[in-house]
């Protein structure tokens, strides 16, 4: 007999309010609601609930709420109830624990312990409603030398660049890990916002080639959907070396999700697993990476900036320095809180380092070595608000990547069940009836609203600092102060403690 694992959540239904309309039953793909014909009452199956709030949001009489179970083990500060239950599950199945979305553990957030500056009296603040504020950003290698033609005119020696109306992009999420409608929402929003979305490693659906000018296409070790027209379709090509949620671990789309359009887009046999291991089996050195970077440049006739995405791990500064020398135009760094459609839980929760520290040390290292202008830095791995965004730029980022935040704008409730293919919000699922729940037009509208709101906040914060362009905010660590940090933490971040 299996070890008993108690349901994590309780479905609480107000008998008084419930009108037995059975909406919740139809809405819950996990099957946590049922109807007892003979008694004429609704039933709940707590063990199936993942706390996604779909039923709660759609119940017409607001009769539902979901609670974390109060059932508990004997108090033990070392063995939490959750840890015990996970152990039971492994004893029952012999399986590697699998979950999704970003690291939920209560590890310290550096963003939350950084405070921003504002001008007072001298160096007056700027009113962003009245004064122009430049948020346009160009990503790519910036040449440090000026060349002139025979008549002394400046020659354009700038390589391929990405032009963003504001320094933010939607980071890689593959078609397969998220739905067609989620991709359509991201693509539409990116176009309207003058920014970029990233199609991830699962290829680019034929319907989305038209969004190419606002698309970053990804090349991972499995090379799904990669052919020359794909490389040409995007505005930039990203080589995925690592992902913050699972550094050292590859991607693996289970065969049951690799069907129909997903398989066609990935160009792999339907129903077979789509495996993209962590190592590219042709890359064992920076020189090997350089070869892939240049083969992509050649295949695209040097028209696309090449991004290399790495996970924030120990020694990330030295790694980034190597990557900068590989010929990459942009380095994307993904922090340990970055999301995922599926990852071994233990890896997600224990491997990698915070993006704030990784970013600060990479920026510093590249400056020290005099190669900072050779690459742009894009960071992700939990940018949750406009202030995380501002702080990241002030720590040295040229732009930020958001993914979890973007999915939240599409209706995600962070139930961390993306790996089950049963996303009740139509985001992380390939089941047609569920995908239909996400309207791409409304999705895009929410994304546009979110980014516009953040842009307003960005301008307001910059105005408060007396800064009128993102350029002047970038790497401007004087605008940051730490609270409750050790000397070492402050040193790594390159900021002073508040009060100084």
């Amino acid at each position, binding site marked *: 007999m299996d070890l008993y694992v108690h349901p994590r959540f309780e479905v609480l239904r107000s008998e008084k309010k419930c009108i037995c309309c059975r909406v919740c039953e139809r809405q819950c793909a996990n099957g946590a609601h049922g109807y007892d014909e003979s008694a004429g009452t609704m039933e709940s199956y707590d063990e199936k609930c993942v706390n996604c709030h779909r039923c709660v949001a759609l119940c017409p009489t607001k009769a539902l709420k979901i609670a974390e179970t109060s059932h508990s083990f004997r108090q033990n500060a070392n063995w939490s109830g959750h840890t015990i239950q*996970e152990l039971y*599950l*492994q004893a*029952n*199945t*012999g*399986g*590697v*624990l*699998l*979950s999704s979305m970003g690291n939920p553990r209560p590890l310290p957030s550096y963003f939350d312990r950084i405070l921003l500056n504002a001008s007072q009296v001298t160096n007056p603040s700027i009113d962003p409603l009245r004064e122009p504020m430049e948020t346009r950003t160009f990503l790519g290698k910036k040449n440090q030398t000026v060349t002139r033609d025979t008549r002394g005119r400046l020659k354009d020696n700038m390589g391929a660049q990405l032009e963003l109306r504001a320094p933010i992009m939607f980071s890689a999420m593959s078609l397969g890990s998220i739905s067609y409608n989620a991709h359509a929402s991201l693509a539409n929003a990116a176009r309207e916002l003058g920014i970029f979305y990233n199609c991830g490693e699962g290829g680019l659906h034929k319907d989305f080639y038209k969004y190419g000018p606002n698309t970053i296409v990804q*090349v991972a*070790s*499995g*090379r*799904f959907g*990669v*052919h*020359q027209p794909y*490389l*040409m379709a995007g505005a930039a090509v990203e080589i995925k070396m690592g992902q913050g949620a699972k550094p050292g671990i590859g991607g*693996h789309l*289970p*065969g049951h999700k690799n069907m129909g359009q997903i*398989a*066609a887009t*990935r*160009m*792999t*046999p339907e*129903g*077979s*697993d*789509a*495996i993209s*291991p962590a190592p590219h*089996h*042709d890359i064992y050195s920076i020189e090997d990476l350089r*070869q892939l970077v*240049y*083969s992509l440049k*050649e*295949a*695209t*006739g*040097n028209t696309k900036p090449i991004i290399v995405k790495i996970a924030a791990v120990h020694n990330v500064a030295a790694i980034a320095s190597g990557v900068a020398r590989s010929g990459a135009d942009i380095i994307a760094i993904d922090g340990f809180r970055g999301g995922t459609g599926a990852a*071994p839980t233990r890896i997600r929760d224990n491997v990698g380092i915070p993006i704030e520290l990784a970013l600060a040390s990479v920026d510093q290292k590249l400056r020290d070595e005099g190669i900072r202008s050779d690459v742009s830095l894009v960071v992700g791995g939990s940018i949750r608000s406009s202030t995380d965004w501002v702080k990241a730029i002030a720590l040295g980022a040229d732009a930020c990547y958001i993914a979890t935040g973007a999915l939240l704008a599409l209706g995600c409730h962070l139930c961390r069940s993306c*790996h*089950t293919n049963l996303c009740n919000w139509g985001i992380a699922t390939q089941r047609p009836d569920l995908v239909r729940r996400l309207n791409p037009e409304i999705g895009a509208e929410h994304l546009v609203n979110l980014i516009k709101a953040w842009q307003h906040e960005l301008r307001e914060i910059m105005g408060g600092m007396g800064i009128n362009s993102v350029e002047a905010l970038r790497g401007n660590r004087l605008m940051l102060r730490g609270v409750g940090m050790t000397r070492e933490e402050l040193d790594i971040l390159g900021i002073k403690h508040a009060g100084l």
Partner: protein
Amino acid sequence: MTTIDAKALHFSQLGESLRALAGQEVQVKNCLGHRYIGAGISGISIDIDGIPGNALGAYLLEGSTIVTRGNAQDATGDTMSGGSIVIHGSTGDAVGYGMRGGSIFVKGNAGYRAGIHMKEFGEKCPKLVIGGKAGDFLGEYQAGGIIVVLGLNAKQGEPCVGRFCGTGQHGGKIFLRGGIVPNELPPQVFVKQTEPEDLEPIVPLLEQYAATFGVDLGMLKSSPYLLLTPNSANPYQSLYAQY
């Protein structure tokens, strides 16, 4: 036929010249380690005199052909989606990495990790034929396509491929001439001696190999072959506990 003397050219200059000649027949003379020749070009025909560098024919497209008279290096045909590459010598590591269409014929040997991550979908079925021997990890993570290793230079009783052949294979077919089971085959690979009907998909490949490199077709066709296929399209399904 246009001739390019590559002697004084950097790979990026050679690449630029070749891209400008898409759709034409080109002879590259004095090739000396130039990388990325033919990368992502469609409808070109390149004949190489000399030694091409890494990533020959990467991302190659339909309608292109590359013939090289000497050896090729690493990552030949990386992620190619069509066309053909013919090597009148040997090639280095990771030949045909992630290829999803077209064909590669290697007269001699291939290094480690040949044909890894090969894919197929619908009409597109990539083919890699190696006349000599291949190193370790042949067909690792293969998801589709056909790999043939002829082992024409293998000694009596010696397997024509190295160790760990087909590790993580979850699709496609590997044919090994000579019928000798390679060392340290991973457990998820299913091995059988071929029946005549199993050889049907490779007969045209054998014909082409024999015609291109002047080898006796009858001998190739009458040899014993092993067929390696994965025993599951979902090798990692049972690895996880979802919650």
